[in-house]
């Protein structure tokens, strides 16, 4: 397997080549800081704008320090302000949280069970199933917009939590990640447990899963991020505003022609709050995200 964690610690730090001459080095650093600003600036502008008033956001969109910082946006979003509740942010938040938690738990369970069976258990039809999983990964999600609506509509779960959650529970990429991981575990461990008389279920639950922490964490994080950021599925699976999530709610709010060009502090504040959970996870577990990004290339 390729080494996926590009952390510098493992490599020898001794330089191969002489250091770059000083002027070139400084120019390089300047360029690099320019690049880094390009990537960071939009988020900084977003942060500062959510503390501005509407007129200031319009007249001075670039300044990073609000002249008269206000938390009005966040009071309005969390419902503690008195400016009406045209943005049902808390409902979006609770819908997103509910769906994400259930989907993440379900995916970890189903992905690891299916991944283990495909990696280790010998049964008829396994090879066909592996091909099936790989084929499913190749199906582009946006092609399924209308098809998914058809199935949900036919099953009578359109515009319900069931319709939002159940189709997301099955995820070919996660199964593949788990399968790859289980294949890297030495077989001897399971053999030993088997000789001690443990059955497949016990081996999986008490021997294999506890050894699989890194892969389980990766799949958990990817599932959380995936379902928290999911947009297209909720767009075609729901209709009523009761089921709006942070993504569908925000998308309808900001893309609507009526309020275009106004209320930017509110819009950016809502977007900011909706980013925080994934951002926190990302900063805490960065190396697992990196592993996940590279797992995409093993497909």
């Amino acid at each position, binding site marked *: 397997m390729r080494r996926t964690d590009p952390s510098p610690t493992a490599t020898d730090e001794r330089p191969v080549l002489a250091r770059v001459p000083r002027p070139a080095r400084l120019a390089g650093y300047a360029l690099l800081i320019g690049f880094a600003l390009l990537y960071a600036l939009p988020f900084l502008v977003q942060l500062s704008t959510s503390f501005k008033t509407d007129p200031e956001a319009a007249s001075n969109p670039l300044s990073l320090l609000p002249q008269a910082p206000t938390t009005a946006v966040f009071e309005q979003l969390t419902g503690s302000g008195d400016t009406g509740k045209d943005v049902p942010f808390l409902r979006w938040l609770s819908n997103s949280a509910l769906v994400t938690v259930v989907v993440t738990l379900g995916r970890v369970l189903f992905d690891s069970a299916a991944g283990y069976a495909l990696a280790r258990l010998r049964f*008829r039809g396994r090879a066909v199933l592996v091909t099936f999983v790989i084929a499913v990964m190749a199906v582009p999600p946006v092609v399924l917009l209308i098809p998914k609506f058809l199935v949900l509509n036919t099953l009578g779960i359109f515009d319900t939590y069931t319709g939002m959650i159940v189709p997301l529970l099955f995820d070919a990429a996660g199964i593949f990640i788990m399968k790859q991981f289980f294949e890297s575990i030495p077989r001897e461990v399971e053999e030993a447990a088997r000789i001690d008389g443990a059955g497949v279920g016990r081996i999986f639950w008490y021997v294999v899963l506890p050894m699989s922490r890194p892969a389980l964490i990766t799949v958990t994080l990817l599932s959380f991020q995936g379902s928290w950021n999911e947009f297209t599925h909720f767009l075609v699976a729901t209709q009523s505003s009761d089921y709006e999530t942070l993504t569908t709610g925000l998308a309808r709010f900001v893309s609507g022609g009526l309020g275009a060009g106004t209320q930017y502090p509110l819009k950016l504040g809502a977007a900011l709050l909706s980013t925080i959970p994934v951002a926190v996870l990302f900063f805490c577990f960065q190396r697992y995200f990196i592993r996940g990004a590279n797992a995409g290339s093993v497909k």
Partner: protein
Amino acid sequence: MSTSVTERPAPPPLPRRPGRPGRPGSRTTRGREGLWGWLFVSPMVLGLGLFMALPILMAAWVSLLNWDGQSNPFTPDADFVGLQNYQSLLAEDGLARSLLATSLRNNLYYVLLTVPLQTGLALTLAIIVNQRMLRGRSMLRTTFYFPSVTSSIAVCTVFLFLFQGSGAVNQLLSWVGVKGPNWFQDSRGVLWVLLDALGIVDGKPGGVLAEHTMMGLPFSEWLAGPSVAMCTLIVLAVWTTSGTFMLIFLAALQDIPRELEEAAALDGAGRRHILRHVLLPALRPVMFLVTTLGLIGTWQVFDQVYVLGQGEPANTTLTPAFLSYSYGFDNAEFGQGAAISFILLGIVLLMTGVQRWFLRERGARNPLAKLRKGARGAQD
């Protein structure tokens, strides 16, 4: 049921032979393993079959219907129209065909600009972040990767604000004396804007280019390039995807044996020489992987279109994915929408096929073969 293709009955558990409890490899264990195997995969088979395979079959049927989303399309009363939906999209002169042509034109330019830019930028960033002497490498890596993990809708919201007519981007441009366009309202194709600025074409070319059409769209439209509004989507795509691709390049860079670089340096090769004759040849398989992943991804652009333009201005941000959605959910012409889905599926599967075929041909699983070639190149 679509799952029937893959769903075979599990072999029955074999009777236990006396005196031989389930030893590893014995037939009893095998039989029980088969049961467990199917128990473990059955949720997946059911779920993926029900929500991935079945939808495709149902949509294939609906793409042959004239269906408004109200009645049950799976009864004999359904209004079966055969290949009519495909015909009006591909062969007959009319609104459907010119909309599809416009969306294909838009997406093609989006792909042509996004893929090289994101690949090039990702490679540059990876090479920079891979420098061993660089300070703050991990912080830089985090900064470049962060846009890739955030929600596309949240990021689009930020871009809506940044690229407004009087927004932050135009304010930045005004500092260097450029008057920025009204990004989201500007439907002019950038090629004509450029040629107009150079004084070669006045506004939009007329004459031959405007008179002759392909798929109901004049050549002056086909050649116009992405609209100014589409350019914001391209910038957004490059900005959000380059971080992910940078990580893929970075992993590949760290797989290159250090001895190779050291040997080249001892032979007197300079930095530039090593980059060109050692690193880049070794990265070629990954480069191909990233390019095809980019091709597959960019043909599916949807979220950004939904938030930033919904096809506007003048249909210049319309893409096949959004057109399909809009036919179904805005116009209640689900048959037509499903037909567009299948055309898009064809395009994406073609890209995937090219990727799979090339990876097999080139032996990308064995980057060392490339390395050796690269090392030979460095000696030349």
